[in-house]
């Protein structure tokens, strides 16, 4: 096994789009970033011989959309109190977060070569004290949503327009702390808070349905006082439209159920629980990269609200 070296960290860095860019230009920007992030992330996991590639790939389109065209934060404003916040609650997809942050210039792309190596800043779960742009040290599940609620309350006290986004897994919603946080989000009418659920329907070893079914998730979130919207979590146009629409319903926090597939869009990984934390072999790495190299970015229209 060769370690990930500089020749494997060749991902281009994507600049900040002009605020006047057209929707099509934004979608193209996100799509290309997501494609490059996936190629880089595959190498990250292959050469580190560890990682959570399945969950990485279900979440990358959401993160690429946020960092590519939604969040008002750049490497230069990473300490600005008025920046938008993105909190990754499913901290085990740290590899995808690091790669996304590198794609948008928050950390040097070559630093990705240290992923999981002894004493690297790039731990298996994110550490905000070591990597610029990380908002919370997550890893244990069910932590991101309360933190996001706290930040959204703080923004409200400041009468600020800054927004708070939190990405949770779906299996993670089995943790009760999320539902505590949802009650508080509703009580405090945090309409600049957006919860995004990576609804890939798989947890570590089985489907959520077999384990502890979350359905009817939309009705539950509605009952907890959220404006609920469902999107295709791999459709950059739908994601862009919904995540940009803050507040989605005045007075209510937003709950975006992003329907995704673990391992998307790789043919042999997609929707396959075995790829929760499996490492691609050299042949699988090449096949996956070939599939991504030949992929064309797609787009479509906005999401359906309910």
């Amino acid at each position, binding site marked *: 096994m060769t370690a990930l070296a500089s020749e494997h960290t060749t991902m281009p860095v994507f600049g900040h789009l002009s605020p006047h860019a057209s929707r099509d230009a934004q979608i193209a920007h996100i799509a290309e970033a997501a494609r490059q992030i996936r190629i880089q992330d595959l190498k990250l996991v292959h050469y580190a011989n560890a990682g959570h590639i399945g969950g990485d790939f279900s979440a990358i389109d959401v993160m690429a959309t946020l960092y590519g065209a939604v969040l008002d934060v750049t490497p230069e404003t990473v300490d600005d*109190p008025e920046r938008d*916040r993105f909190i990754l609650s499913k901290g085990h997809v740290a590899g995808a977060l690091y790669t996304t942050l590198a794609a948008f210039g928050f950390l040097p792309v070559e630093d990705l070569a240290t992923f999981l190596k002894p004493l690297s800043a790039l731990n298996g779960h994110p*550490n*905000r*004290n070591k990597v610029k742009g990380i*908002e*919370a*040290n*997550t*890893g*244990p599940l*069910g*932590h991101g*949503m*309360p*933190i*996001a*609620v*706290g*930040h*959204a*309350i*703080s*923004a409200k*006290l*400041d009468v600020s327009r800054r927004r708070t986004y939190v990405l949770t897994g779906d299996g993670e919603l089995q943790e*009760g*702390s999320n539902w*505590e*946080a949802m*009650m*508080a989000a509703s*009580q405090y009418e945090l309409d600049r808070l957006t919860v995004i659920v990576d609804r890939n329907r798989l947890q570590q070893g089985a489907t959520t349905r077999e384990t502890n079914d979350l359905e009817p998730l939309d009705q539950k979130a509605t009952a907890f006082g959220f404006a609920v919207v469902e999107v295709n979590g791999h459709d950059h146009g739908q994601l862009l439209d919904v995540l940009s629409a803050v507040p989605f319903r005045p007075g209510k926090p937003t709950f975006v159920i992003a329907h995704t597939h673990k391992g998307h869009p790789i043919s042999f990984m997609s929707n396959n629980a075995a790829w929760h934390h499996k490492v691609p072999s050299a042949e699988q790495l090449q096949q996956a990269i070939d599939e991504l190299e030949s992929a064309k970015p797609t787009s479509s229209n906005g999401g359906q609200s309910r």
Partner: protein
Amino acid sequence: MTTTSLTPEDRIANRPRFDCRNAYVETLAEMAHDNHRIVGVVNDSVGSSKLDAFKKAFPDRLINVGIAEQDMVGVAAGLANGGRIVFVSAASCFLTARALEQIKADVAYSNRNVKLCGMSPGMAYGELGPTHHSIEDIAWLRAIDNMIIVVPADPIETAAALRWAAVTEGPAFIRVSRMSVPEIYGDDYEFVPGKAITVRDGDDVTIISNGTVLWRALGAAEQLADQGINARVISMPTVKPLDTDAVLKAAQETGGLVTAEEATTAGGLGGAVAETVVGNHPTRVTILGVPEFAPTGSAGFLLDRYGMSPEGIADAARALIK
């Protein structure tokens, strides 16, 4: 050095006693008045934390998440992310046990500016029993990196610790007692984290204590003085980081160490002192604390039962140097 001519009124056990929560809320409100970044976070614990006046003065800045401790501590970390100085105020038993993972990951490991104020700690809830006792909080939090642990002994030290916490970036855990205690410090007292205070000098034996037990340790020293034994009493408000210099000096200069605290005998102040001497200057240490799920009784009754009446502490000190 101390005579046996103490009048009954002079004895610490007979002085007026105060609930530290009053100093807590007065100081918090005063600081919040001067600094708009200060907020409180509670789990429905407005009344038990005596925060009604704070709520009235700063209604927006008392965040009540309801009976939801994990959310409470996560919300506190998020408020700190937004630039607030956050004082979480909740019964210590629920705060530290229910939200331990949030304390570890969201506050300590994330290095957030959150002050965890454990109200009514130890056995303050007395007859409500071990579910509501918080004797384990010190040991649990002492095992967590990047966590300063403060156990004030009187209202003045409680207020001083709060003022320190408000101007110091980073995590801290502060116990706020509801069991009334006599005043030990003067109004000029300044809290210095990690520093012990020799509240009574002596070189026959040392008693190291804090919180609600410190006045009992001073009472023990009065009784020992009556018998011609000069006990040094060290107040150790900061359990972590421990003032190891003061501990080792006492180990070298006196006949032995007694630790006494309203906390479990495993892993608290006593454990910290023992860990210090064993590696540097092996010394006999008697650890007084709560060794079990306590039976029904008031906090005062239970402290007496576990050898932490002034008489009990004096007995332990005498046995150590016999």
